[in-house]
């Protein structure tokens, strides 16, 4: 079943055209990967889906779960069930991880959050992700290491249970153990009713996940779509071949 459909999307920032006609279909139960060199428009794609006002849509449509979300506000899109794990998660002093997540869960689900259930759930996920349980009482991302921030994003993913998870460079800057933990979190999240869009420029995180489609994004266009084999080919030969096109 179709979950996300991007149709002929053009996006620019104040000084630059970035996406030049993206088309992408993601069905429930699938894992998609967008790969591409720096500056090709990967992060822009993620931001455009969540309608970050810093990125202006010039043309095209985004349909999610049968509804046009192209121009919805970011929070409305989040409440429809799209989540993004940030490359550089923001720090919020004075708001604990626990309070933040409880508040966000309430906003996303529109239902009151049962406090004890919530705490148990949080504890369980943190154990799975090898996170220090004291982190829930720390201010959100403040003083967290790069790895802790990324794990914290995956924790949020598990708690908020979106229909579509966009993981923007979640693997970058992580050591092998941390990548394994993050992959484990992604596997825990994955089921037949949801989908994942992984944005990356390396292939390490892909080895432990069963990827359905790999898209190569170059200069604002998807130039090639394939299976996991395509990622392997990129790992060996790089993007040069596709840049010529």
């Amino acid at each position, binding site marked *: 079943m179709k979950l996300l459909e991007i149709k002929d999307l053009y996006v620019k920032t104040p000084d630059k055209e970035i996406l030049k006609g993206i088309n992408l279909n993601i069905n429930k139960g699938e894992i998609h990967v967008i790969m591409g060199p720096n500056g090709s428009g990967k992060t822009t794609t993620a931001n455009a889906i*969540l309608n*970050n*006002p*810093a990125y202006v849509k010039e043309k095209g449509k985004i349909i999610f779960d049968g509804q046009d979300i192209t121009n919805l*506000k*970011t*929070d409305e*899109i*989040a*409440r429809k069930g799209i*989540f*993004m794990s*940030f490359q550089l*998660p*923001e720090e*919020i*002093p*004075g*708001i604990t991880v626990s309070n*933040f997540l409880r*508040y*966000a869960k309430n*906003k*996303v689900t529109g239902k009151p959050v049962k406090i004890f259930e919530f705490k148990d759930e949080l504890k369980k996920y943190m154990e799975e992700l090898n996170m220090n349980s004291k982190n829930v009482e720390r*201010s959100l991302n403040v003083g967290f290491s790069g790895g802790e921030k990324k794990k914290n994003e995956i924790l*949020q993913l598990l708690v*908020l249970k979106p229909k579509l998870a966009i993981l923007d460079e979640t693997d970058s800057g992580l050591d092998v153990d941390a990548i394994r933990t993050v992959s484990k979190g992604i596997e825990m999240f994955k089921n037949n009713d949801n989908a994942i869009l992984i944005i990356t420029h390396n292939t390490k995180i892909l080895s432990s996940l069963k990827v359905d489609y790999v898209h190569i994004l170059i200069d604002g266009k998807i130039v090639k779509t394939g299976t996991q084999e395509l990622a392997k080919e990129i790992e060996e030969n790089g993007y040069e071949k596709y840049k010529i096109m």
Partner: protein
Amino acid sequence: MAKTIIEEINRNIYDIKNKDEYDFKIQKGLTPEIINEISKQKNDPEWMREFRLKALEVYNKLELPTWGPELSELNMNEIATYVRPKTKLNNSWEDVPEDIKNTFDKLGIPEAEKKSLAGVGAQYDSEVVYHSMKEDLIKQGVIYTDMETAVIEYPDLVKTHFMKCVPVHDHKFVALHGAVWSGGSFVYVPKGVKVDIPLQSYFRLNSPESGQFEHTLIIVDEGASLHFIEGCSAPKYNKINLHAGCVELYVKDNAYLRYSTIENWSKNMLNLNTKKAIVGENAQIDWVTGSFGSKISMLYPMSVLNGKGAKTEFTGISFAGKGQNLDNGFKVIHNAPNTSSVVNAKSISKNGGKCTYRSLVRINENAKNSKSSVSCESLMLDDISISDTIPVNDIRTDDVEFSHEAKIGKISDKTIFYLMSRGLSEEDAKAMIVRGFAYPTSKELPVEYAVEMNNLIDLELEGAIG
């Protein structure tokens, strides 16, 4: 238009306006005759009448401050300095007249008294209308009463402490206070007595074109401890109201006092308040302040660390909206060896509001091996608001550790986007960031007050975005 919404915003409970009914309202202005009349109305002892008249002389000699916010709109000929409500001092809420009781009910005072306070004083205009304290504290010799009763019943304690910590010639508005003071609380905690549950005094000004001049005098004797909370609010009128209270705190050797304030005066109030603590050997005073209201505020609580090893911490936040000029800060004098001070001051300004952090840290020559660390941080919610930091550091010995850090910032669009991607609306996201920013102050307050502070933040932010 967001800007007009802010002016029209319903401050709900804080804006309850009772009819301006009173038992007695002094004519506007400031003359020896008026002072004599106030003194007569209050049944002052003769020494207090003389004190008032002397203070008036000092007031007339002193100039307005030449720095800080413009005070020219204050015209003492337009202010009634004494308004006696239509009731006496009561020790049961049942006896407080209904409209007055309703106001305090809506402010949550009797409820808080039942749940989380050891004693409560409630002032309405110029007089305290309710005062009560738990029995076991009375048995331990704790005194908590209105200032007028203290003048009569504890003359020795009052004479040796009243306006000795803050002398009338300190500045013009302290002199004014000395001349027209009325109401306020007196607390004495005997040696070694630990008061575990806070006492609270609440000051409500209802009468238009009037002033409130309550006097708070607290003596925490050797080895004793106390948490005192003051709250204040007023409904909004079109003309200027004046608050010039005075707080004098004596924290004797090895004693501890925490003084918490939630101030939410209406936005026609000039808040020219004075607070000062004298701190003995190994004693500590902690100030916690949330300042939301007032048109103009000039308030710089001061700790004088007179005893060896004395400590002070100041944790405060000011929130200025449209038309507000909050000139707040903190002063500390290190006047003995091994003393320490920690300041964590924050401010938020929006819709053209102005916040200034003005401070003095003086470390005297005799204050060897002392430490002082000051951090102030401001958050501006838009491009038209103003934030300023004016620190004066006067360090007279080399044998000290001193640090000062100041940061001014804005909420970044990236942070808002991050929070919105988690399902928070833009308004929720900003409120969350601001609440987090204020957290160092709210975490120092008892939970009910932290909740009230967060509500005030939400109230201030309502309509600010759009």
